[in-house]
């Protein structure tokens, strides 16, 4: 196992230099999936990760610690439009797989057909079959299973009751978690080491197979020789004080695989001088909002699986995905309306709150712009139609709370009352569609380096190879040309493994 973490500047006379067949930038869902398949195939692999490698024993407990130790930019990266909505991404070995709920939902077949019809994918049936074949394997490797009833917790039980009452064709969430302890802290990393995030699965496996990992190593640029990618370079950065350390160069004998995320991959290609009209464009997302229900008896939403229930019943008709969610006490204060003694009084309901959320398969298209300092900035303006669907989804969630016996529903929408009685939900259905009235987040991100047959509209070809360049492949959410309408981790992992197989076969 070869792991190079932060290297102080004085330790080496020259930059740290490593050479491998394949260099994989990023160790999240896409990067780790590609790296492990390449390593299993006998190739030498170097993984390069911007953040540090933290084991479950290193995970923080508080929200402050989570923002400090795990989140990209302390969680204050924003999608800029009429409203400012936070972008949730991690920055550590394992990427966002460490801080999400490990939700595994298979790639919908019609999405791949959309890629064929609208983006020129030549053999979508074969691609879909390859993705699903890998998803079979991933589900076995990462112990994907429905959330067990014993660890669901009351919030998920209430949602199941509401789902049955409203005929939402709901189910226990399928997650890559082995023997869930129900600690309600998926978003802070699973300290019980039950979540099969890539930092505890595929990254160690790739290292055991001979791969090299550079952590605390943000890549500054891809090295090009003519139109061929031959490696990456950057400098180690101390994860605590951001001190710059030794420079590194990682040479790729065969290819560089980019999997740095939907925001960082386009910025990296831009910094590297990749010329493409489509670079940074076609950025899409599933914006999401949560709605609280207040119950007479304690719910303790942070006791039990963080996201143990789901419904995709409204995905085909409205592009909505419904799921449970739990946020820690420290974040509830900002999510509840009001301030002062009013806010303190409302926080007294904390243990009686259940938060359920809706994510919308938005049609809005944004852009990732690279600033002069090389950082990505997302511009994203959600349209009225998307907002109407988001509002419809919030209304369904409110109806679920009513069906589950909530005494009050807290929509958290500016312009509506703080609390609605179950017979007042019509106010939410007719609520504002101005995004500034809503406290939403950008949950799932797509695009920026999209795949497609036409180089004028796509950065990569349908096999993820950057148009016009050799040895440069994109294998993360930034390559997805559309949204999915379901949680993307499973698709990103499977598609990255398909890309790795193609590289091995080339």
């Amino acid at each position: 196992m070869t792991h190079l973490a932060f290297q102080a500047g004085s330790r080496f006379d020259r930059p740290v230099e490593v050479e491998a067949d394949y260099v994989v930038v990023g160790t999240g869902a896409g990067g780790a999936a590609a790296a492990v398949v390449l390593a299993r195939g006998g190739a030498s692999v170097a993984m390069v990760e911007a953040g540090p490698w933290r084991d479950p024993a290193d995970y923080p407990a508080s929200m402050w610690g989570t923002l400090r130790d795990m989140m990209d930019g302390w969680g204050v990266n924003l999608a800029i439009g009429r409203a400012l909505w936070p972008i949730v991404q991690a920055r550590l070995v394992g990427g966002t797989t460490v801080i999400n709920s490990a939700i595994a939902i298979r790639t919908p077949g019609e999405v791949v057909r959309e890629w064929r019809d609208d983006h020129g994918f030549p053999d979508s049936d074969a691609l879909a079959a390859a993705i699903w074949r890998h998803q079979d394997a991933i589900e076995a490797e990462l112990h994907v299973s429905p959330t067990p009833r014993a660890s669901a917790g009351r919030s998920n039980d209430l949602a199941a009751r509401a789902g049955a009452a409203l005929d939402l064709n709901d189910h226990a969430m399928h997650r890559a978690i082995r023997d869930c302890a129900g600690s309600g802290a998926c978003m802070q990393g699973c300290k019980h080491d039950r979540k099969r995030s890539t930092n505890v699965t595929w990254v160690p496996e790739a290292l055991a197979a001979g791969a090299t990992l550079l952590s605390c190593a943000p890549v500054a640029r891809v090295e090009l020789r003519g139109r061929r990618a031959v490696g990456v370079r950057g400098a180690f950065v101390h994860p605590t004080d951001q001190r710059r350390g030794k420079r590194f160069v990682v040479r790729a004998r065969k290819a560089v695989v980019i999997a740095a995320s939907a925001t960082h991959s386009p910025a990296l290609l831009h910094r590297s001088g990749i010329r493409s009209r489509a670079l940074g464009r076609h950025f899409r997302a599933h914006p999401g909002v949560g709605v609280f229900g207040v119950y007479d008896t304690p719910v303790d939403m942070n006791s039990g699986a963080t996201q143990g229930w789901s419904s995709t019943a409204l995905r085909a008709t409205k592009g909505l995905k419904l799921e449970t969610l739990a946020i820690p006490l420290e974040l509830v204060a900002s999510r509840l309306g009001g301030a002062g003694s009013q806010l303190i009084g409302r926080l007294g309901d904390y243990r009686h709150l259940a938060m359920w959320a809706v994510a919308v398969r938005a049609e809005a298209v944004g852009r990732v712009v690279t600033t002069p300092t090389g950082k990505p900035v997302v511009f994203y303006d959600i349209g009225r139609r998307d907002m109407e669907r988001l509002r419809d989804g919030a209304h369904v969630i409110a109806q679920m709370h009513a069906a589950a016996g909530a005494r009050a529903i807290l929509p958290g929408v500016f312009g509506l009352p703080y609390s609605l009685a179950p017979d007042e939900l019509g106010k939410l259905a007719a609520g504002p569609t101005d995004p500034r009235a809503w406290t939403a987040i950008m949950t799932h991100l797509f695009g920026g380096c999209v795949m497609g047959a036409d180089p004028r509209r796509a950065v990569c070809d349908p096999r993820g190879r950057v148009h016009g360049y050799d040895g440069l492949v994109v294998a993360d959410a930034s390559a997805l040309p559309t949204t999915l309408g379901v949680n993307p981790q499973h698709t990103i992992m499977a598609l990255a493994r398909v890309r790795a197989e193609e590289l091995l076969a080339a």
Partner: protein
Amino acid sequence: MRWLERFALRAVMPAGGALPGIEATNLDAFLDRFHREGPAAFRIGLVAGGALILASPVLTLRRPVPASWLTPEQLDQHVQRLAYHPLYPVRQSLFLVKMIAGMCWGADPAIRATLGVTPLGPDPGTWRGDAARSPEPPKLGERVISLDAFRRWAAARR
């Protein structure tokens, strides 16, 4: 600045309600950590939010005085109106102050005990390769690092 930050945090989570306010927590220790570790965006946002709360009673109460001159009841009414202000930037500014206050208040063991919520564990802040967890790697002078040398070092560390 520290006074302004304390003023803002106390205004959005005051004492005297059904639950203890932020003053009941170890606010000084939190602010020390906030300044030592926190990003510039948080520090600027908290100062800007504090300045907004301090300077804006004229917008909410029609009183052209700094908020620090208001009675506790008036200050409470002032921040409540700011939280529901029609201008989005004003609401967002309050949102950030509330978020920072919440991270202090909600992590406090006494507050959590009052609510019947389990206390939080530590934030170790450690990582693989950290001096707190492992020795530094060997000094290597080769132009291309010998992976064998690193494997020997890693094995010795285990």
